[in-house]
């Protein structure tokens, strides 16, 4: 069943010729004919695992209650990088202010899941499967988008996760790659001649004796290796004056930029970063959260600068499983809450705005009396990006059980 669906996905554009022809051949032919246009849209998803404190990332400095509830950890008004008189950036995110000013950065506040869980595990799972409250969903929403939307070119690099394993968001029957390190993808043999020779030998073995999924998947893998060898993404050095911050996030963003510049057909990239679960001494303008946000701000700013004009068709989205309590806890930290804030960055973004309906911080406006209420279902934002940025035709199959309504889209993409 899955095999035939994959074959169909791959050969979708060539249905006319499909009678009596081998799907493997069709896959290759489809691939050759449908080489992606260099300007095709890209979505980069960055998951902040551990639940980022949305209130200290996008600070509601215009709310006296914010300061009353957080005597030790609130960002002092004079430190906040003001955005619109009511909200402002954490000072660590100051490198992103220029992007706000040129209208390519938006924040979406009070966004989250309709499910009330405060378990990291469940909430991350729901955000990746795209089915809040349903634990048994096996695949992720990005993969469902890739398997249902056949309009896009199907290259081995269409959906790539940076990390050792495929995350839940990419799990499923559509081809997707997990790349730990772009330079080391393929056979791990130090001598290039031996490596090339063995790669070719394995390719011949699989061409000769594999059938079904083994055949199509191995073919995708060898195509990916060949493409990487041909385009050599490492040749794309960061633009002059661009310096990615040290650490895994910076390295990953650099490699995503290289894949985009190499025009291998990347449509969705996924990366994650940890350390956002700030229960204890999270700090204020400085400290623990400030350090994490500094890496994020520097990384995103470097990425945007590096891609330059190419950012016209790129959107970077940050996401996190939930937000944190409005009131600071007894350990100068915050506990698991409900709504949080997300950032959208890129040329197509309806920037210079804090989007979403702000529910307020008053006790009666809170979720369960303590957390920021969710006024935007995360699927409305994800759905908008799929439809208006990537051109998805069918959201019903991407978010089963959810009724996508363009009226409810937060307006993150310029009309």
């Amino acid at each position, binding site marked *: 069943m*899955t095999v035939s669906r994959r074959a169909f996905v791959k050969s979708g554009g060539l249905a006319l010729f499909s009678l009596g022809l081998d799907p493997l051949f069709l896959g290759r032919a489809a691939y050759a004919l449908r080489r992606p246009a260099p300007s095709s849209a890209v979505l980069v998803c960055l998951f902040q695992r551990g639940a980022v404190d949305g209130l200290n990332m996008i600070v509601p400095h215009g709310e006296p209650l914010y300061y009353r509830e957080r005597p030790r950890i609130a960002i002092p008004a004079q430190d906040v990088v003001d955005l619109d008189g009511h909200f402002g950036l954490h000072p660590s995110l100051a490198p992103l202010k220029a992007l706000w000013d040129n209208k390519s950065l938006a924040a979406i506040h009070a966004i989250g899941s309709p499910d009330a869980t405060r*378990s990291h*595990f469940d909430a991350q*799972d729901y955000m990746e*499967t795209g089915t809040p409250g349903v*634990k*048994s*969903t*096996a695949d992720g929403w990005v993969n469902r988008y890739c398997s249902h939307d056949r309009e896009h070119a199907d290259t*081995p690099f269409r959906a790539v996760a940076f990390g*050792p*394993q*495929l995350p*839940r968001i990419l799990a499923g029957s559509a*081809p997707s*790659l*997990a790349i730990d390190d772009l330079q080391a993808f393929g*056979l*791990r043999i130090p001598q290039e001649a031996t490596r090339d*020779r*063995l790669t070719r*030998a*394995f390719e*011949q*073995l*699989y061409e*000769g*004796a594999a059938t079904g*999924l*083994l055949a199509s*998947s*191995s073919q*995708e*893998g*060898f195509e*990916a*290796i060949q493409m990487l060898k041909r385009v050599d993404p490492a040749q794309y050095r960061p633009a002059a004056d661009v310096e990615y911050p040290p650490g895994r996030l910076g390295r990953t963003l650099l490699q995503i930029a290289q894949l985009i510049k190499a025009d291998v057909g990347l449509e969705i990239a996924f990366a994650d970063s*940890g*350390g956002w*679960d*700030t*229960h*204890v*001494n*999270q*700090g204020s303008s*400085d*400290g*623990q959260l*400030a*350090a*994490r946000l500094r890496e994020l701000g520097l990384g995103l700013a470097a990425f945007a600068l590096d891609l330059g004009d190419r950012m016209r068709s790129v959107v970077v989205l940050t996401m996190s499983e939930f937000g944190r*309590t409005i009131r600071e*806890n*007894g*350990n100068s*930290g915050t*506990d*698991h809450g409900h709504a949080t804030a997300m950032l959208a960055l890129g040329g197509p973004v309806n920037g210079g705005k804090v989007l979403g309906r702000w529910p307020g911080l008053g006790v009666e406006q809170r979720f369960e009396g*303590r957390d920021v209420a969710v006024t935007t279902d995360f699927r409305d934002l994800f759905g908008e990006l799929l439809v208006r940025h990537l051109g998805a035709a069918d959201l019903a199959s991407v978010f089963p059980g959810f009724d996508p309504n363009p009226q409810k889209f937060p307006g993150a993409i310029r009309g």
Partner: protein
Amino acid sequence: MRLRLLTAAWLAAATPLGAQGLTARDSALHALNRLAYGPRPGDVDSVARMGVMRWIEQQLDPDHLRDDRLAERERAFKVLDYDRAELAQRYMEAIRERQRIQHDMADSGDSMEPRRGQPGPMREFRELGGDLQQLAVVRAALSERQLREVMVDFWTNHFNVFVGKGADRFLMPSYIEETIRPHALGRFEDLLIATARSPAMLFYLDNAQSIAPGAMPPFPLARNGRGGQGVRARGGTNGRPRPTGINENYARELLELHTLGVDGGYTQQDVIAVARIFTGWSIERPQQGAGFVFRDWAHDRGEKRVLGVTFRDGGMDEGVRLLRFLAAQHATMHHVSAKLCARFVADEPPDGCVDAAVEAWHATNGDMRAVLRAIFTSPDFWAPQAARSKVKTPLEFLVSAVRATGAEPDETPRLAQVVARLGEPLYLQPAPTGYAETQAQWVNSGALLARMNAAVALAAGRLPGAAANLDVVIPLTSDHSQLIDMVNVRLLGGAMSPRTRAVILEQLADVTDPVQARALAVGLTLGGPEFQKQ
């Protein structure tokens, strides 16, 4: 009675029913691929000599098989030395220590992430998890009771628990050792009840915090401010709300995944009723051992109806009665039998073997040995098109390669890490579905490349955690044609295609060193398409 007669009939038969297309060696290889983690050197011949049906009967009765070598190796795994209460204590200490460190690090403005290479208080539990994974790999590779290990893997997935969720970090060892393993070849009902009572499952699917709406504990839990994170129902400390009602997670997965199946004919009302029946099934606090406890005060005393059957005034017995009832439903028998056939026969199993399994289940009240015997004697199992039709899971691939090359796995978690890189980190499937029995979950380009890398490394003696003993399996020879014939017979049971043979022969053409030639031939064979199948 009929089953017994049938069994006697095949034991007497030279070849199994329906296996006319398979030679004695092919039948032995097929059984070793499916009931075991692939053949070790010499296994195919010895099973063929003994008679494959006799070998299957031995595997169905593992307590009479000696397994001394594994028992010796198991002693090196310290995870088997701890009991749950002890681990619970250490886990609580680790959590307190982590909080203390976070305080200190936050004071210096440092990140919360422990520095790479620094131990950190949770290291012991990460190591414990690695230990537990590696133990599974070692058992799969070395045990003489191969079918039992295969069934342990099957049930671990069927009743999946994610070791990365809070308290399951320390509850997992007892889940595997005390809940799954003793029941792997027993009665389904006993296993079902054991999982329902297991602290690991109660925590994983949140039943531990499911209480009757409005129920209050006899004394407030919140007053005890010490410890409790990760095990106690969420509530009390840190201003978090106390659980205020039923939690449906376990109830839903019990019906959908563990028993009836998604099309098993239940409704949302049934799910709610099941959740109410299990209110009060919970976990003791870590200080008390983190064992199973039934909290009478939390139990919903009202009347519940599940699939037309009424439950009331039974306390904890209601849940046990319900589990027995579910285990005896035809939908459950069919759902679990079809899954067993997907594991042992084909990704999309024919009706014949499923029906045979269900019939045996009815006849024996869910004796898994009888159910498995019915599958292994079904003509579908022995049909020539069933042989080599399934793609190996990452665990099956790696362990079968280790066994085929006569390699000895060590105690470090490195082989388990290879299995994880291939896409199957053991006990780390977050979704309650467990890992799939079908190829779509395992076959993707990155995972296949990872298999090729593991194969090349193993053949070259570079795979960390397992030294291959190729001299025993494939003696050195400078005759390339002879080398490939030997590799074909010993590693693939003769399944090598002419094309594969030609490609490997061509690769060997300019290789003069026999050690290098052997490593190349073995690496290409283990990483090639034929070895991915079973």
